[in-house]
C-alpha cells in the first residue's frame, strides 16, 4: 500500500465533489457533493496520519469533520426545505432574486 494511492482516491473524490457542487442544479445533490469533498478530506487525513505516524490527531480531526458535517447538512436541508416551502422548487438556478 502506498500513500499516493489514497491521495489519488481522495483527489478523485474531491474532483467529483467539486463537479457536483458546481454543476448539479438540485440543491440536495449539491449537499451530497459537498459531503463527497469532506470525505475526500477525511481520507486524506487518515491516510496521512497512518503514514506519518500521527494517527491520533488525524483521526480526531476526521471525527470532528464528520460530526460538523452532519450538523451542516442538517442546517442545509432545513434551508432547502424552507426554500421549497416558499417557492415549491429546489432548482438552484431559479434562486436568483438577489443579484446585481
Amino acid at each position, binding site marked *: 500500500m502506498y500513500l499516493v494511492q489514497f491521495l489519488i482516491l481522495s483527489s478523485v473524490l474531491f474532483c467529483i465533489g467539486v463537479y457536483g*457542487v458546481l454543476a448539479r*442544479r438540485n440543491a440536495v445533490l449539491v449537499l451530497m457533493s459537498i459531503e463527497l469533498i469532506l470525505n475526500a478530506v477525511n481520507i486524506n487525513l487518515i491516510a496521512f496520519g497512518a503514514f506519518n505516524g500521527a494517527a491520533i490527531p488525524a483521526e480526531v480531526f476526521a471525527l470532528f469533520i464528520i460530526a460538523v458535517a452532519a450538523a451542516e447538512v442538517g442546517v442545509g436541508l432545513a434551508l432547502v426545505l424552507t426554500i421549497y416551502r416558499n417557492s415549491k422548487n429546489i432548482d438552484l438556478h431559479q434562486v436568483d432574486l438577489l443579484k*446585481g
Partner: protein
Amino acid sequence: MSTTYLATEASNLAVEASGFFLENVWIIPAIMAASFVVILGFGKRMPRGGSEVGIAAVAVCFVLALLTAGQWIGQVNEAAACTPETCDYIVDEHHDAEADADEHHDEEGAFQVDTGVGSSDGESASALTAFTEAEEGSTAAAAKAVVSERTWWSNGGINFTVGTMVDGLTVTLLVVVTLVSLLVHIYSTDYVAGDRRFTHYFGFLSLFTAAMLFFVTSANVLQMIVGWELVGVCSFALIGHWWEEQPNSDAALKAFLTNRVGDIGLLIGMIVLFFASDEKWGIIEINAGAIEGTTSHTLLLIASLCLLAAVMSKSGQFFLHTWLPDAMAGPTPVSALIHAATMVVAGVYLIARLYGVFFHGLSIGGSSINALAVIGAVTTLVGASLAFVQDDIKKVLAYSTISQLGYMTLALGVGAWTAAVFHLTTHALFKACLFLGAGSVSHAVHSFDMKKDMGGMRKFMPTTYKTFLIGSIALAGLPPLAGFWSKDEILAGTGGWGFFEGESHANGAYTIMLVMGMITAAMTAAYMTRVMYLTFFGEFRGGHHDDAHHGDPHESGPRILWPLRILAGLAVVAGLMNLPKGFLGLPSGWTLRFEHYVEPLAATGYFPKISHADPSWSLAIFSTLVVASAVGVAYYYYFVRVNAQSPSATELVNGPTERSRLLKAGHTMLKNRYYLDHIYDGGEPVGAAGANAMGTIFGAAAGLTLGFSLDNGLNQPFWPSVMWGVILGLTIFTIVTAALRTGMGIASVVKQPMANAANWVHENVIDAAVDEVGKNSVKTADALYKYIDQGVIDGSVNAAGRGSQGAGGELRRWSTGKVQQYATVMFAGATLLAGLLIIVI
C-alpha cells in the same frame, strides 16, 4: 547699503547738497495723495465738488516745487563757487565707508548718500589736481543729488528703500508738472463744469499729479515702476472718463494695454539692471555701475533695449504709439496734462534719469546710429506726417505730440541730454497751451472737427486765437519763441552739421537724424499753419446743428483764458532759459543757465561724461529758413489758394490729395495711420492686446534668448535648449512666412499703385504673419479652453470618472445571482491563485 557709486576718475569732485525742501520733497506727492483721498471721501459734499481741494493742493505743491527749485539753484551756485579749501568735496576712491554708510542708515531713515565726506583729507593733493583738470568751462564742483531714503520692504535679508532723489532734472519736472497741473485744474473747473462725475474727475487729477510727482522724485527704479504704472492707471481712468460710450472705454483699454506691453520691457529691464548692478535699485548706484564699467555691457544693452520698449509705449514712440491719438477720447484738459505735457514724457524722463545705462548700453558716444536715435527719428517723422491728415484738432495735436516726443528721444539718442530735457520743458508749456486752446475752441463749438465745425474762430475768440498762435509758432520753432531754442539745440546736438562745418564737439555724427529732424521741423510748421487756417481763418462752418441754445460761438471764460495766457507767455520766454553759449556775446552767467542747473556733472558719478555740441549760427539760420519756407508754402496753399477756390465761405475745397492719384494714395495711407491700428486691433481692445503681446513676445523672446545665450556662452543643457529652440523656431516661422509672402508679392507691388500696395502689405504680410501666430488671442484662448482644458485635461479627468462608472457597471454584472456561478468563480479563483503560486515558486 553700500554706496560706492562714485567714480574713481581723478576729476571726481562733488559737493554735498542739502536743504529742507530738497530733503523733504516727499511732501509734494504726499499732499496730492492726501488731496485725492479727501476729494474721494468728501468731495461730493463740498460746495465746488472737491475742485477747491485739488486746486489748493496743487497750488501749494507748485509753491513748494518753486522753493525746491530755488534751493537747488542755491546749491548749485554754492558748489560752483566752491574751491577745495572752502567747502566739503569728495575725491572718491573706492572708499571703504560702507560701515559708515550702514551706520548712517541705521541711525535715521533719511541720510546723505555721500558717505565719503571728510574721509579723504590725506588726498587733497590729488583733489587739487582734479579740481584744476575739471572740464573745460566749468570749474565748478558738481552738486550731488540729494537722496533721502527709508526702508520700504525687506526680502532675502536685503532692505529695499523708498525715498526721494532730487537734482536738477527732478526739480525741472517738479516745476513743470505742478505748473501745468495747476493751470489744468483751474481750466477744468470751467471746462468740465456740470459733468456728472465732476468730483471723480478732480480726484483722479489729484491722484495723477501725485503719481507723476512720485515718479519724478523716485530715488530708485522700483519706485519708478510704481509711479509709472500709477500714472498709467490714472490715464486709463481719465481717458475713459466718459465710459458710457464704448469707443471711450475701448480707447482707455487700448491705452492701458499697449502700455502694459511696454511694461514687460520695463519689468524685465529693471530686473536685469537690478542684478547687473549687484542687487541695487538706486538710480545713482545703477548709473554709477554702468559708468564705471563694473556692470556687464551685454546686460546693459539688454536692459536698455527692454527699457526702450517701455519708453516706446509710454512716450508714444513708433510703433507702439497708436494708443495716444485714441487717448484723445478723454477730456481735453486731461489730454493737455497727461497726454501732452507730463505723463507721456515719463519715458523720456526714464531715459534721462538712467542716462548712464543708455549712454553706455547703446554706445551713444562716438557713433552715428543707435536704437534710441533711430526710434526717435522715425517717430518724429511718422508723427508729423500723420498730423497732416487729421481733421480732428486734438488728433493733430496728438500726432504732433508723438512727433515732438520723438524729437526728445532722438535728442537723447544722439547724446544731447540737456537739449532733450529742455525741449521736454518747453514742449510741455506750448503743447499744453495748444491743447487747452483747442479745448477752448471746442468748448465753444462742441466739436473737434476742424473742417466741419470750425473756421474763422479768431473773430469769436480773440484771446484763444492769440494764445494758440503763439503756441503754434513756438511749436513750429520760429525764433525767438521757446520751441526754436530747444529744437535748435537738438539739431546741433546731432553733430550732423559737423559734416558741413567741421568739428562740432557733439557725441557722434548723427547726420541722418539731423536730416530727419529738419524735415520734421518743416512739416511741423506746415501742419500747424494748416490748423491755424482751418480753425481760425476763413468763415465759420459750424452752427449747422442748429441747436437753439448754442447760437454763435463765444469766447471762453476767465478760468479758461488765464491759463492760456500764462502758458502762452511762458512759451514766449521759456527759450531764454538756455541761450547758447556765447550768444550775442552774452556773459556765461546769462547763457546755458538751464544746462548749468539741470544737467548733472560727470563728477557726481551717476552721469556719463557727455560732450556738448557747439552752437552753430549757420545751422540755426538754415533751420529757421526751412521752417519759414514751410510756413510760407502752407500759407500760400491754404490762405491763398484754398481760400480763393472754396466754392462758398462755409465749404472747403477738396485738397490736393483728392486730385492727384499718387498723393491720394499717400493720403489714404496716412489716414489709415500706416495701418498700424489694424494690425493691433482684433476688432476689440483685447484683440489688440493679444496681437501686440504675440508680436512682442517673439521679438522680446528672441532678443532676450539671444542675449542670455550669449551671456552664458551658449552652453545650454538639453531641455532649456529645446525651449529656446521652440521660441526661436516660432520667431523664424514668423519671419519666414512674412518673407515668403513678401517675395511673392513683389511683382504686384511694382505694378500696383501705392495704396493697394500698402493695403496688400497690411493684409498679406504683417497681418498674416502676426495673426497666423496669434490672430486674435481670444480665439486662441477659446480654442485652448474648449479643446485643451475642457477637452483634454478636464476630459481625461471626467473620462476616468466615467471609466470607473463603466467598469462598475460591468463588474456589477458578475453578480448574476446564481449561487453556483459564485462557487465557480470562487473555485476558479482558488485554482488560478494556487496554480500561479505553484508554478512561480
